[in-house]
């Protein structure tokens, strides 16, 4: 019973224009197991899930549910065969009642028997021990309960396979415990659960088996009990621990005797990170390391007030400062390159020139527009300096490649001559040559006295550029690594929860 295969996928391939998203991936889900699907962003997890749920069609490979070969052309087909999905963002209607949300769009007749519907809902809620009343409006339930109702909805659709995509990312600890209880209940009923999360501890708490993907390839399927957390991290990152070579020595920046350029004390924001302390000295390059979702982006967002700051103290060169909005940070000489280049960095319809001068222009003031000549001179200067490939300064930003767009945003901040520059994933999704250029630029800036916080998913990059690494896990700082001989293994130890500290 326990080993009965409920979903079997063999040799799955899927490519998008220019990208091989999945290459020859196998995946097996057994009845009554929780199977964690692990991998960093872009590893192919969501592509695989979307093939299982019929959102994407696979290019090659076979897929069978309970031994019967299937080929889904639409999400409805997958749903009808008993595959339920609950996504990170709750896709229910918050202004409808709990019962309506559970049964909406499922009746075969156009008439609704309200009484029966509410009774059924009550029964289901009871049996799954979900603390909600059927007639309650959904928006009055906590996020965790809403999440559970979404699961209940999926389960009641005669669900054999349940996919939970980052269900815990917006839940607090108590709520996670409740959710896990529900998952165990479903497990005992023979439902196969695919669990996707960035939280390693949760994986080990609930999963029976773990499948690891990296760059669209299957790395392997493991029993959760036989794979250590450290091994899992190294498999996800693609570095076997024995192979980790010592990276070239990071530069050590002399810490000046005077106050740090920027300092934060128990800084908090609306995102759910633990309050943290942070310091950076003149000419220092430091970085936040950790897996995606560990809270590294949220930390720098709090520094720049990109997320609303809810508490803590900030100091600039020893003087107390109040940073409530990005403009305050900008005026203090802080620049921020956001992780989401497309959504938060570029203004796609505006020209390269407008994109470069934007922050400088805002600092200069509403009534002091740069002349066209000045703007073009600045643009040409940075196009040359950073070798941005663009037909002209007036070319719309959207027609540039990702790497060149990133350089434009770097140019935007360099033009403001910042004291402190925050670069969140400046090298993501761009070609290797540009990556190296950006790293060199960071070191060069540090030499000129600019302080830089550099975040990258690629640990080697951070080891190469940062003289101090702040390691995060589960939305809090768990360690700090300094010194010349920090290795990737050290970082992984801390990430995996070894509690390893390097003096």
């Amino acid at each position: 019973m326990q080993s009965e295969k409920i979903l079997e996928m063999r040799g799955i391939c899927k490519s998008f224009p220019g990208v091989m998203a999945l290459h020859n991936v196998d995946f097996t889900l057994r009845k009554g197991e929780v199977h964690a699907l692990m991998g960093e962003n872009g590893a192919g997890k969501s592509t695989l899930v979307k093939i299982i749920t019929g959102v994407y069609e696979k290019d090659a490979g076979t897929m069978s549910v309970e031994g019967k070969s299937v080929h889904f052309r639409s999400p409805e087909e997958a749903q009808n065969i008993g595959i339920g999905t609950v996504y990170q963002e709750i896709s229910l209607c918050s202004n409808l009642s709990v019962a309506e949300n559970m049964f909406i769009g499922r009746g075969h007749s156009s008439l609704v028997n309200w009484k029966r519907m509410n009774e059924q809902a009550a029964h289901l809620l009871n049996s799954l021990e979900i603390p909600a009343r059927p007639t309650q409006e959904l928006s009055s339930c906590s996020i965790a309960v809403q999440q559970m109702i979404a699961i209940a909805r999926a389960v009641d659709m005669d669900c054999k396979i349940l996919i939970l995509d980052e269900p815990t990312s917006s839940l607090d600890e108590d709520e996670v415990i409740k959710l896990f209880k529900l998952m165990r209940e479903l497990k005992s009923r023979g439902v196969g659960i695919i669990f996707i999360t960035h939280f390693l501890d949760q994986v080990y708490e609930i999963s029976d088996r773990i499948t690891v993907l990296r760059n669209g390839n299957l790395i392997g399927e493991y029993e959760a009990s036989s794979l250590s957390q450290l091994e899992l991290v190294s498999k996800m990152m693609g570095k076997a621990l024995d192979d980790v070579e010592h990276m070239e020595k990071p530069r050590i920046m002399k810490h000046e005797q005077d106050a740090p350029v920027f300092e934060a004390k128990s800084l908090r924001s609306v995102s759910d990170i633990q309050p943290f302390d942070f310091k950076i000295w003149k000419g220092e390059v430091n970085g936040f390391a950790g897996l995606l979702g560990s809270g590294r982006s949220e930390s720098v967002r709090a520094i720049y007030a990109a997320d609303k700051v809810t508490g803590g103290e900030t100091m600039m060169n020893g003087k107390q400062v109040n940073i409530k909005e990005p403009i305050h940070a900008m005026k203090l000489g802080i620049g921020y390159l956001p992780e989401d280049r497309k959504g938060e960095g570029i203004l796609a319809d505006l020209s390269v020139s407008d994109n470069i001068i934007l922050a400088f222009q805002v600092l200069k003031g509403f009534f002091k527009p740069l002349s066209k000549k000045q703007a073009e001179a600045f643009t040409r200067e940075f196009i040359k300096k950073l070798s941005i490939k663009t037909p002209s300064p007036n070319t719309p930003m959207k027609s540039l490649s990702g790497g060149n767009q990133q350089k434009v945003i770097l140019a935007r901040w360099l033009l403001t001559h910042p004291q402190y520059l925050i670069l969140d994933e400046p090298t993501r999704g761009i070609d290797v040559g540009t990556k190296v250029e950006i790293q060199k630029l960071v070191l060069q800036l540090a030499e000129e006295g600019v302080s830089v916080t550099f975040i990258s998913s690629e640990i080697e990059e951070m080891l190469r550029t940062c003289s101090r690494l702040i390691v995060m896990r589960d939305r809090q700082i768990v360690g700090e690594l300094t010194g010349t001989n920090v290795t990737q293994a050290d970082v992984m130890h801390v990430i995996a929860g070894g509690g390893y500290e390097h003096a």
Partner: protein
Amino acid sequence: MSMLRIKGHGTHLMLPLSVLMILIVINLMKGADYFSITVINGALYGNIPNILFGAAELVIISIGMTLVTAASRGQDISVGVSGAITSAVFVQVVLNAGNSGPITWFTILTGFLASCLVGILIGAFNGSLVAIFKVQPMVATLILFTAGRSIAFLIDGKLSPVLANELISRIGGVIPGIPIQTPILLTGMFIIIMALVMKITNLKLYTEAVGINEGVARLNGINPILIKFTNYIILGVCTAVAGFIAVSKAGRHDSVNLLKFIEMDAILAVAIGGNALSGGTFSIAGSIIGAYTIEVLNRTLLRLEIGTETIKAFKAVFIIILMIIASPVIRTYTRKLVRRTRISPERTKEVSDAITK
């Protein structure tokens, strides 16, 4: 126009300009005397002056509508009503002054400034609903659209107060000694003022940034709420100026019909001008040409002796054709067609090499 810093290389303006050309050709076919101008009492009259005269209010409102559209990704449908309210205030100030003495230029200026103040208040009302309370622009402005004409009527106090005054008729008509009708001059002045505002401030950059992506604008230190609010205020002033011109032309304040349906024409002018109604980058020059195009269209239909009862249907047909031609689907299709006919197969490689270079 060049002062308005025409965005890009004028590609946006291809559509309105070519439509304008087509309409002029139609008019010339109807009669070669289309451009002829006659001088009556020292002022110029004829088809072209009539178009410039007739489009005055629409041009001014279209400028504000362009800004609001770009910043708030939606349209203000209360502009006609707003003009009716502001001009009612103007009329009251002038009539009250008239009761106690002669009406002077000073009275008119006072009345105009009062109406501008009311325009600013209306803009602030709409602007705070949209910018602060995040109400969709069309819904937010629907409030005044519904209630506004009653408010104008209440300000009037009686049915259609008449402004029988020499000075008012000069504003709505001709100032002796000046060959161009005053509304045309006022429109020109307004365009120049707006061009100066664009030149000495960063309104265009900030507005476009907010319209394209509020989040990015905020991360770069721009306050999206303030920018949206400001643009609604500017539109409020535009409606006050338009109301002032409209009531001066008419010589009486008809709170029911003054600037009726101008909101629809203004939105259309913005669209014909090549501006996306979903906000972002914009071209005021395009909207101005769009506004004049609409006026030319109206007058062309009249010249073709289409009955007044069917004129709206003809206008609709013309606009449908125009919008389909301008739609992205047709545009990409024609672009492909042009490319295919221009480049012979054996040259394709050379050319594409040259392009990638």
